[in-house]
């Protein structure tokens, strides 16, 4: 009889070599991402602590001026320091408009997602497809389409004038309202998709049980459906809020340089403003806001999933 050998554990050896293979397979993608996506973010952080060059670019000298300038404004003539109102206005506009956009897309997207989820199974993918098509088309083109609808000679104003409701076009373009409409329009699919995903999983026998226990339609919605699809609501809200906060194209086209958001302010610093460190500091600020929102999302979903199962 041979004695079974208890040599080095072949199973854990194999596991180790499999892990190495997994890393090797992922490495090329990771290298490209590190070089052209994640890595450069560190450079932005470094730049935010340098001094501005006279004609753009930076001077390699440590400085906290950029961060100071995010919040305060120093008059170059008399040296007095005041609160940087312009920056605060833009920051506040970014947060406010993103928040309102999220609320509107939720109000519109929830019924839409519910509508799709309650269609017969074989039709659902077609309805969903109708939601995703605009999402995969060019953001700029969609913003441009909204511009054509709301401008002074656009569909809405001409329509209202023809009907005799107004005699002078309403100025909608280049207002906060325009930006909000545009963002709602371009980001609506981002709200509908996760909402639909969680509604599709909804077990409708729970709704039946609620009706069986004398709930009204309203009660069924508030006590059963909304609590059950809460993860979808949170995911959709985050998916709309984050790109809204960093929006660039929509406010540029529909706000027309008058109503700026954070993205446009950042661009300004790298363009006409010629203050790269300030632009970098603003970028880091935006990134921090987004990360905070993401972190909040992760926290709530973890708590949520922890309490449910």
């Amino acid at each position, binding site marked *: *009889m*041979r004695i*079974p050998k*208890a040599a080095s*554990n*072949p*199973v854990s050896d*194999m596991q180790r070599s499999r892990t190495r293979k997994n890393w090797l397979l992922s490495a090329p993608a990771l290298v490209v991402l590190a070089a052209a996506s994640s890595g450069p973010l560190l450079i932005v952080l470094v730049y935010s602590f340098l001094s501005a060059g006279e004609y753009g670019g930076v001077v390699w000298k440590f400085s906290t001026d950029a961060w100071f300038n995010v919040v305060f404004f120093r008059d170059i003539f008399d040296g007095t320091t005041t609160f940087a109102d312009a920056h605060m206005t833009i920051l506040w506009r970014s947060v406010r408009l993103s928040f309102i956009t999220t609320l509107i897309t939720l109000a519109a997207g929830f019924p839409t997602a519910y509508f799709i989820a309650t269609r017969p199974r074989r039709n659902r993918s077609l309805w969903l497809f109708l939601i995703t098509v605009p999402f995969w088309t060019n953001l700029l083109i969609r913003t441009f389409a909204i511009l054509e609808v709301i401008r002074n000679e656009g569909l809405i104003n001409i329509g209202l004038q023809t009907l005799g409701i107004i005699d002078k076009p309403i100025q909608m373009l280049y207002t906060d309202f325009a930006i909000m409409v545009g963002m709602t329009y371009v980001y609506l699919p981002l709200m509908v998709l996760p909402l639909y995903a969680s509604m599709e999983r909804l077990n409708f026998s729970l709704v039946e049980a609620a009706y069986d226990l004398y709930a009204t339609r309203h009660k069924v919605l508030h006590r059963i459906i909304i609590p059950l699809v809460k993860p979808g609501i949170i995911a959709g809200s985050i998916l709309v809020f984050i790109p809204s906060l960093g929006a660039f194209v929509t406010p540029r086209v529909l706000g027309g340089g008058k109503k700026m958001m954070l993205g446009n302010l950042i661009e300004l610093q790298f363009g006409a403003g010629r203050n790269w460190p300030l632009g970098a500091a603003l970028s880091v600020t935006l990134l921090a806001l987004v990360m905070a929102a993401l972190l909040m999302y992760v926290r709530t979903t973890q708590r949520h999933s922890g309490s449910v199962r």
Partner: protein
Amino acid sequence: MVEKQGTGQANTEAPLPAAIYAERVTKAFGEGKKKVLALDDVSLTIEENEFFTLLGPSGCGKTTLLRLIAGFDQPTAGAIMLRDRDISQLPPNQRSVNTVFQDYALFPHMTVAKNISFGLEMLGKPKDYIKKTVGDMLALVKMEELRDRRTDQLSGGQQQRVALARALAPRPQVLLLDEPLSALDYKLRKEMQIELKQLQLETGITFIFVTHDQEEALTMSDRIAVMNAGRILQIGTPRQIYNQPADRFVASFIGRSNFISVEVLSVEGRRARLKLSSGREVISPLPDNWVPRGRVTAVVRPEYAQLVAGSGDEGDLQGVLENIVYLGTDTQYHIRLPDETTFVTRSQNQCQETEAFEDGQSVSVVFKPEAVQVLRS
């Protein structure tokens, strides 16, 4: 030298190496506190040309053992020999062992014929040979007309046949079947059982069949290994397993059993004289050279006991008829014994009802010869 276990047919000619010999195989999953022993020191010999079945409830380790033989997992300790060659560390594509998967695992992007030829192509067989073998295999499983179908257009039974043909085409030394009939409906399963047995006889390949269905195991197997909790409890022919179960688990897992307490009076050779609770004495055959003592548990199959009316002295046990269950082919009688346990007997139904029993009637149970079998535990 390889140690023979169980009661494999005695080999009078030059000793052939066993088809599969598992030597003290242990397989653990997880580490530390979460460590689970899926196989606990299992040894097993499977002879050439045998239809061998691993039988046990789910989680007993039978599929794990099969996967170790196939090479999809490696044993934590111990060795697996294929015709005297240690294959424990060989990858599956270097073992002359093929598997019929539980869900068939047919390649959905290939036709029936392409599925069957896959293994032969991988082995680098010549084109003519592949063509001929695929034809033979299609004929063997009666699927000639469907050779160019895509596999997702086949019925369950057809997929089953393709999976068989695919695994048999490379003429493996051992064919492994992982509950291949479990996805089929009852009638088809019955047919396939016969066909599988036939196929094994025709091809002369060793089959190792995994199932949790005791009836399936009894129908097809030359020998059965009953497993539970990572161990092999008994290896034997279907008849041995049924008539002489080694322990309580085997007895209750296979068929229906009555467990009774008996006292061993004496042992002579391989026969024991036992005293029943009623005071009657019976003779019971013993497996191996094992000597039971004192009070032990014995098993009696319901069909090996007969019911007679009245509580006369001629019965081995006396009791009150509690329940009569009519089952078509036979009838089950539930008898309450004086010690408040229930004893079940079963008798085949006749065209004419000969004896009519009634609930609440006093009855006696008469054991057929050698009906009482002493258990080791």
